[in-house]
Each structure stands twice: as structure tokens, then as C-alpha cells.
């Protein structure tokens, strides 16, 4: 563990402890995991230069079975190039940790779900900025149900979902509405958790 710690200075660790929801020990575990997963492609680079590509990241045990894995990587990629630096990876593990507050989790959940559907839209329909629309919900349902529903059913389900919270009758879920309703779900923080893998699986 001492070897891993030397890759990060005390100042780095202190900053990360201040800015994330992880303990010193947990940060070092994340570092260890990051080194482990980037050692094949970035062996000779420093920890801050190493990057985890989208392809590599989605194959990690932490994300492999997650239906939103690509989207998660996109959201946490600070360079917007769909690759993760160590700090991005740490940020991701912090948001998905058990200790992150509900408000932070809700905010990132919105980021993940908003604009998730970029492909299956009619040509004249553009993704709504700052709101989850019907096409996003269809995509979410499609992924959650393992692509088992046809388009008619998907539309029907998505409309039923949006009708539950559609206060303005514009078929959109704004950040405020999303936050408001999701904050009232008691078990959401316990399921919006990704545990760090030991790398054996």
C-alpha cells in the first residue's frame, strides 16, 4: 500500500478527501484499482497521465452488467473524449459510494438519464437540454427491460411514466421535477451504488 500512496502526495490525498465522499483508505483502494486496470495500456505513464478508454471502462466488473455503462463513462469523462482519468474514476467511485449524499446521487442520476437517447430520434427531434424527454425514457426502459418491448409498448410505457410526473403537460421531466420526486424515494441511495471490485472477477 505504501507504494501506491507514494504515487499521490499528502496534498493530493487531502484534496481528494475534502472533495470526495471517500476515506483515505478508500481513495488508495481506488488508486490501486485504477493502476490495475490501466497497467496494460499505460504502463509507463504517470498516474495523472493514464487514461481508461470507454471500451476498457465498460468492461470493468464495476460497470460490466450496468445497462447505462457507456453513459456513465460519458458523464464522468472530464475531457469529454469518453475516457476516464484517475480523477474522473475517483469522482465516479465517490458519487457511487455508499457515503455520497442523496442530493449528489440524484443530480448525477439526472445527468446520466438526460439526453441518453442520441440515436433513436426522428430527424427533426433534437434532445431536450436540461430535461428528460419521451425518447430518453424509451431508451431507459429499453435498456432496463433488456430490449424486450416493441416500439408501441415502449411508447405506451414511457407515456405512462411521464404522465405520473408531468406537471406542465409538455411530456418532459425537468431537473427540478426529477429531483423533487426522486428525493422522496427512500431506498434510491442504497441502489445507486457501485462497489469497487477486487479485480479478481
Amino acid at each position, binding site marked *: 500500500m505504501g507504494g501506491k500512496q507514494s504515487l499521490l502526495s499528502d496534498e493530493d490525498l487531502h*484534496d*481528494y478527501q*475534502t*472533495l*470526495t465522499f471517500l476515506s483515505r483508505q478508500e481513495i488508495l483502494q481506488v488508486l490501486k484499482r485504477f493502476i490495475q486496470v490501466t497497467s496494460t495500456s499505460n504502463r509507463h505513464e504517470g498516474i495523472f497521465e493514464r487514461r481508461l478508454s470507454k471500451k476498457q471502462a465498460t468492461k470493468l*466488473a*464495476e460497470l*460490466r*452488467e*450496468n*445497462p*447505462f455503462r457507456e453513459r456513465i463513462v460519458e458523464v*464522468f469523462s*472530464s475531457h*469529454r473524449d469518453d475516457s476516464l*482519468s484517475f*480523477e*474522473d474514476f*475517483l*469522482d465516479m467511485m*465517490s458519487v*457511487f459510494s*455508499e*457515503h455520497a*449524499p442523496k442530493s449528489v446521487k440524484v*443530480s*448525477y*442520476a439526472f*445527468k446520466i438519464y438526460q439526453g441518453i437517447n442520441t440515436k433513436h430520434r426522428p430527424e427533426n427531434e433534437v434532445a431536450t437540454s436540461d430535461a428528460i424527454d419521451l425518447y430518453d425514457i424509451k431508451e*431507459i426502459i429499453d435498456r*432496463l*427491460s*433488456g430490449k*424486450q*418491448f416493441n416500439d408501441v*409498448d415502449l411508447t*405506451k*410505457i414511457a407515456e*405512462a*411514466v411521464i*404522465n*405520473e*410526473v408531468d*406537471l*406542465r403537460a409538455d411530456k418532459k421531466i*425537468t431537473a*427540478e421535477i426529477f429531483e*423533487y*420526486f*426522486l428525493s*422522496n*424515494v*427512500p*431506498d*434510491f441511495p*442504497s*441502489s445507486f*451504488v457501485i*462497489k469497487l471490485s477486487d479485480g479478481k*472477477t
Partner: protein
Amino acid sequence: MEAQVTEAVRQAGNLQNLVDQNGKLLERRPQNADEIYRSTADALSHEFDQDYSKISHYIQRKLDWPLSFKRLLLHHVQKDVYDNKGKLDNIANFVFDPTANIKPRRSFHILIPTIASVERQYGSGVSALFHLQNGFFFINLLTLIVWLALIIIPYNVLKSSTTSSNLTFTFASIFTTKDYLSESNLFQGSYPRGVINDKYNLSLIYLITTYIYFIIWFIFITIRFSITYKRKVFNSILSAKLGIGFMCTFARCDYTIKSDKEKRKHIKAFQRQFLDLIGNDETIESNHQNRFKTCGYKFKLVITSLLHIVLAIGLGGINWLILSSCNNPTIDCSGSIIYIALINRLMPYCIVLLTQIEHFKSLADKLNAVGFRCIFLNVSIMLSFSIYFFIHAPPCYETAYGQYIYILLLSDLFASLVFPILFGLLFDIICGKKKRNFDGINLHVQLSPPVLLYSQFLVWLGIYFSPLISIMILINILFSFISHRLYIYIRSLRSDSYKRVFIWNAHRLEYLIYLLAYIILIVSVTFIVVFTTQIKPSENCGPFRQLNVSYEIIEIFLNEYQSSVLWISIINFLTSPGFIYFLGATFIVIVYKLRHESLAEKELVFIRDSNLANKKKLREKTVKKLHQQQKNKKQKRKPVKITRVENDDYVQRDEQL
């Protein structure tokens, strides 16, 4: 004060807007990063008066920037703060606010993690049952501590030198309550008056503890009922069926899943719930369409409910007859005990079955019908027993009544352990394959709350006569929790475990649970109040022996300590039977207030949302206008450009313009 709050909210909103804007700028113009960081750091320092701990807390929680951006911002803030403030300030900050740098506390839940998976699979209605057990367990634990701290421990510490029992403990006495157990601290009869009165006024403290016990319960049920009522009202105002749709899509995706097998199960559960969503929508629509066809619906409901009331009274009457065939209404009248235990625990299953045959317009009506009918049956049986008991009170009836309730709780304990698994699986086998609307899960959702409330009702009736009876309900809840959890586990092992089940709404269920709890608490309190103010304590038993009524102890105390009018008034008020009803009235006022709060909350959501929409529309209109103006200008310029060649002076003037 309101103005200050509004100003604070406005400022917070401004800061958040600025920070969000700067975050976007950082992505668009990385060359200006230093400037953006500086302006953000200045804004934060200004907002939080250069309090580093508050700023870092804000950056950690409120900023959704990437970590690398946050870190650079933190460095700018650090630089600002350390430039402007000396280290002494930090020391001072530590002295005045030592918790500033401590990380937020982790919330501690014992049962929630295990319940979360149940909620994801069967909906919030099923998990509400476990939340109910969780809440009741902790309040019973708290009240047990109150009894231990105020009665049991002081009594045992003080009595040791004066009295001792010759009886030894036998295992059989746990089931018969005779010999050792009847003489133990479990029952009121074993607390003598006058033995330790010089050191500790046991009689007075005993009565006050009873009142404290019920006040704790009133507070708990009021709070819980208020919360669920608020949710229900808010839910109905919004006309939102917030439940499976929004919850499935956004709240139930389990990010912790790592194996393919779990994922496949998870997907199946989602498929089922999404199908339910369409199914339920269709059901609701068809119900609305058929609304006018069921004109005699209410009349039918009233008639069937009346029949159930008559049935409950009839069963209570049979209990009266059984009791009258015994010499004394004590635990020796085993026929009555068996009858009460069986009727109270088995009849609810018959009521649920009968209710399934009836046609209900909505699930809420069905749920309410089952809950009210079961509770009315329990109240009817227990009142028939209690009234008979006090009319034909045996000697040392305080202990006898406690023993009776104890035996009933013991049988209930057994039922709590066996019935959920037994009947759950039985109903799954009989009904589950054909009808998904009524299987084991549905049975438990409808029946478990009234059953738990029956156990609690027994404790509320018996606590005054048997102060340690809370232990029984603690074990009962534990057994019930294990049994329900085990049933769900066994069910999950079956191949068709992920078939479609009916998803129940937790808000509706919780509201009903606490409403029923409130009703039976009122019945129990009335019973205790009548008992303590009207019925003479037995001559040789309990701390109130030789008094005309138990409540007389308060009057004696007040006569002895008539030193301060204020003190007397407070004691008189707190210990008067009407105080509990005063709490009841407060409860109604709170509910009324909450209703208005929820209305206001809804208004706020609308206002916020429409404000955002209006702003957006305004911005779009302004952009369109500007765009139009620019177009017009360009169109005007076009002929000017042509003339440019002809007249250079004119062009210059136009450019100036």
C-alpha cells in the same frame, strides 16, 4: 424573517446559477480557465465570508463539476482564504465550530438494506410492511426502557432488602404464567404499596409512567400519521400515480449488480413491472369508464360492512358466553383463551378471502375494507372480554388480566412465526398460478398490518397490568420480520418467482396503517382512562391497593405538595386523563396544518416550474426578436452595398450608423 429567508434563497439561487454557468464556460473556453476559477472562488469566498470549511463543503456537495476542475477551484479558494486570513482565524474557527471539518455522519439503518431489495422486486407497498415493523420495534424498545428505568430497576434496587420471593423459576411457568412468573416483576400485582414508599413513590411513578408510555405512542403515531397523510394528500393533489412507473424507471435500477445471473433476474423484474404499468393503467381507465355503471356501489359496501360488524359483535357475544361458562375469567378459562386467539388470528384470513369475492372500485377501497373489518373484529372480541372481566373481576384481577394478555401474546408469537410462511405459500399454491391479483404477497400486504396492530393492541391493553409485556411484542415483531422475510426468500427460490405480482402503493398502505393504529390507540387509552378513574383496585394486589381508584394517587400527591400553584397545575394537567385527548386534538390540528402545507408545496412546484418555462419562453422570444431585427438590418443594408460603388460617402455614413 420571511424577507431574510427569501433573500437567502435568492442569493443561493444566484450563486448556483453563476457556478453552473462558469462550469459550462470552463468546458467551452479552457483558455480562460484561470479567470473563471478566480471569479468563482471570489464569489464563493464572498458568499461564505471566506469560511474555508463551508466553501469546501459547498464544492464537495453542490458542484457537479469534474473532480479535476473542483480541485483547481479548491486551490484558488485556499489561496484566497490563506491570503486574507491568518492561521489564527482557523484556530478560532476550530474553537467556535469544531465540527466544521468533520465529515457528515453516516446514516445508520439496521433493516433498510435488506428491505431495499424487496422494494425493488415487489414495490414500496411490501417494503412498507417491514418499515412498519421497524418503526414499531424501536418505539416498543424505547417504551420498554422507560418502564425499566422508572419502575423495574428502582423497584428491584430498593426492594431487595425488604422482600424476597421463595418461588423458583420453572420453564413451564413461561407458558402457564403460574407460580414464579405470576409473582415476578412481569405483573402489576407483585408491586406492593407502602414497602418502599418512603424512598420511592412507586404508586405515583407507576401511574405517571403509564401516561408517559401512551404519550410516547401518541407522539410517534401522530408524527408518522402526519407524514403519511401529507404524502397521501400531496399525491392525490398531484393526481399522480407516482409509484411503479417513475420508480421503476429512475429509482429501482440496482447499480450494485455485478453478476449476469442477478442482471437477468433484475431485467425480468423490470419487464414484469413495466407490463404491470400498462396493465394498471388499463385497469384504472376501465374503472373510470365503468364509474357510472356502479350506482349501488356505496350502498353495497355499506351493507357488506354492516354484515361484518354484526359478525364481529356476534363473535364477541360467543366469547361472552364461553367466559360465562367458566367460574372466573382467569387463565383457567382455557376455552375463552383458545377461542380469542383463534378468532383474532384466523378470522382475518377469512375476512380477506370474503373481501376478494366482493367487487371494489379501487385498490384503496379493498385495502381499507380488509383493514377496518379486521380491526373491528379484534376490538369487538377484546372489548367483550375486557368488559366481562371487569364486571366479574376475580381477586387480584390486575395480575389475572396481565396473565390473560400474556397468554394471548404468547399464542400470537407462535402465529407470527408460522402463519406468514404457511398461509403465504398456501395461497401461492392455491391462487397464485391462476390469479396474480391474489397470491401470498397480496395476502400479506392486506393482512400483515392489521395483524401487527392486533398484537400492539394487546400490549396497549395489557401494559398497565403487565409492565414488561413490551418484551413480548419485541419478540413478536422479530418473529414476524423473520417469517415474512423467509417467505419472500422461499418464494424467490421458485422458478416462477419473477412472474407478475400486483404492486401496492406504500403511501396508501402506510396511511391506512397509522389511521388504524390511531383508532385502536384511542380505544386502548379510553380503556386505561376508564380503568384508572372508575374501577377500584384490588385489596391485596398492585401499587394502588387500598385506594378507591388508581388516579387518587395524583390527588394525594397534590395535597401533600401544595407548595407551588404552577407546579400543581403542571402535574395536574400532565396527569389528567384529558391530556391524552388534548394530544389527540393537537394531532388533528397538525394534520390540518400539514394539509395546507402540502397544498402550498404543490403550488411551489408549479410556480417554480412555470417560472422556468416562462423564462425560457421569454428568452426564446427575445432571441427570435433579435434575430429578426438583425435580419431586417441586413436586408436594409443590401441596397446600400450596391450603392457603395456609386457613392463612397453614403457608405461611410451607413457604416457609422
